[in-house]
């Protein structure tokens, strides 16, 4: 509860003190930041721009503006199939990784047990292993066991590298929960099961949602591990990489730009709604 209070207090804190005088030095950081944003955005702008390119076979040089690619995003062979595969892999891996990772995160924060250090190490290692090694290890395993490569092996690999990120994200949320909340639920006659579903889980939802989004974006955009574990199965990043040598169809840019705009819109909307909500929540306090 004090955490909530602190947050409310932090947001209602006095407005930042006005600086006595603007000096030239004060501008260095904002200007630098603006340049950094330009740096971050230019390649994205290129990607979006080239989705409107009237490209022939290769989409490397600007040949003129057209809407054809957007009218017919599946016009190039395989591009939409690869996209659909990526969505499928992303959704399945996210569901599995989020479920497994959330449970582990709760156990790590709420219980003291033998082997906790080992568990933490097991979570940390996949994150500190380069993708190429993860891919090579999984491929070595699949080759040894003669597992046919395809959708299943790709999902198995994606779940692996997503779990650790889910654990870390959800763990942060669980640690920020006052353990007294669960005790209060137990004290108010809630069985452990009821306490979890009525108190812990609802309070973890923001963390779990963040973890799921992270897992999905990691999975959806993964190339290296996918390349090792997919055999002839094609995901969107793999399709783009493979076609890079003979020319990427502009439809790939269309799909990528579409995803970009969609994700951006959702995230900005969440930000604005969250801000409006926190403002509304704050309002009544000031009247007291």
């Amino acid at each position, binding site marked *: 509860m004090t955490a909530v209070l602190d947050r409310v207090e932090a947001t209602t804190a006095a407005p930042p003190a006005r600086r006595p005088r603007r000096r030239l030095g004060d501008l260095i950081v904002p200007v630098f930041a603006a340049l950094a944003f330009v740096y971050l955005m230019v390649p994205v702008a290129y990607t979006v721009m080239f989705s409107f390119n009237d490209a022939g076979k290769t989409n490397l040089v600007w040949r003129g503006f057209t809407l054809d690619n957007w009218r017919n995003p599946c016009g190039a062979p395989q591009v939409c199939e690869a996209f659909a595969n990526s969505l499928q892999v992303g959704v399945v891996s996210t569901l599995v990784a989020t479920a497994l990772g959330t*449970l582990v995160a709760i156990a790590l924060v709420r219980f003291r047990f033998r082997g906790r250090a080992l568990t933490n190490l097991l979570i940390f290692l996949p994150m500190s292993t380069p993708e190429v090694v993860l891919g090579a290890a999984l491929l070595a395993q699949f080759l040894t066991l003669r597992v046919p490569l395809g959708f299943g092996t790709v999902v198995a690999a994606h779940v692996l590298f997503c*779990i650790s990120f889910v654990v870390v994200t959800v763990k942060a949320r669980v640690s920020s929960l006052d353990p007294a909340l669960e005790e209060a639920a137990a004290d108010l006659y809630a069985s452990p099961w009821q306490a979890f579903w009525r108190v812990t889980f609802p309070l973890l939802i923001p963390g779990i949602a963040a973890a799921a989004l992270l897992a999905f974006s990691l999975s959806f955009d993964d190339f290296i591990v996918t390349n090792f574990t997919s055999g002839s199965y094609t995901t969107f990043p793999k399709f783009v990489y493979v076609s890079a040598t003979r020319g990427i169809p502009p439809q790939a840019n269309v799909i990528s730009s579409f995803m970009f705009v969609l994700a951006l819109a959702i995230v900005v909307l969440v930000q604005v709604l969250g801000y409006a909500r926190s403002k509304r929540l704050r309002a009544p306090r000031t009247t007291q």
Partner: protein
Amino acid sequence: MSIAAALGESVSGDSAPPPRRTAQRAHLVLLGPGLIYLVLFFVVPVGALLATSLYVPVPGGDVGEYQPALHWQNYTDAIAQFWPAILRSFWFAFLATVASLVIGYPLAYAIAVRARGRKLLQGLLLVLVVAPFFTSFILRTIAWKQILADDALVVTLLHWLHLLPADERLTATPFAVVSGLTYNFLPFMVLPIFAALERLDSRLLEAGADLYASPTTTFRTVTWPLSMPGVVAGTLLVFIPAAGDYVNASLLGNNTNTAMVGQVIDARFFKVLDYPTAASLSVVLMVAILLLVGAYIRRSGTEDLL
């Protein structure tokens, strides 16, 4: 303190919740599925990788047919043949890490400290930082190829300003590869530093000023040390994937003086079907990174980061 110890039980007397009874073994139910998964798809595969790294070709067999052995010479052969690529990987990853720190720290500082108190602005700026992730990693890398192309704006401008000799180019150079790596992993640097700076109590800075520190001194003695956990996390999040990356090297590089170890592993696996060499190189890469990361975490004294 080793990583394992660092990851261990927090010392008693900290603010951790009081020890719970584990008689119900509830933690086993929670941990079980996840840990079994990690064992099956991480521990066992790494074992398979180790085993593969010692395989020898089946005598008289086809290309790509190997049999179990303990052929340690695979390692010495792989290192002898590919040490330039291994060293180059770490060098490029190091350069990219330094570059992202130089670009990322001020950016994180601007968002966390300068925009403090303006929640909406902060939120939107953070969205902008991660926005590149919403487009395809590979398409962005290809966009860099276009941006740095011989007849594109950047190179023309540099030639015109005589900052780049007329016969030099940017594509297919180490510069292109490092800038691609920097670009692709920059958000991983910004986010943890932002998180650390955001937690920093602005009253500490005021206290610094109150105790006669100039802004520069306050930064050096208060802000920077307190943001250290974020810097360590950020550098790891950039360095590790950069060291193993081969997309940037293969799309932006030239194969002769830009080849990174990831490219070699990929090629050994898929083009030459030389699994033992690929596996030994993977093991070398993994061990090298774990040693570096362990030493780094220990030196920076931020074990609790994990």
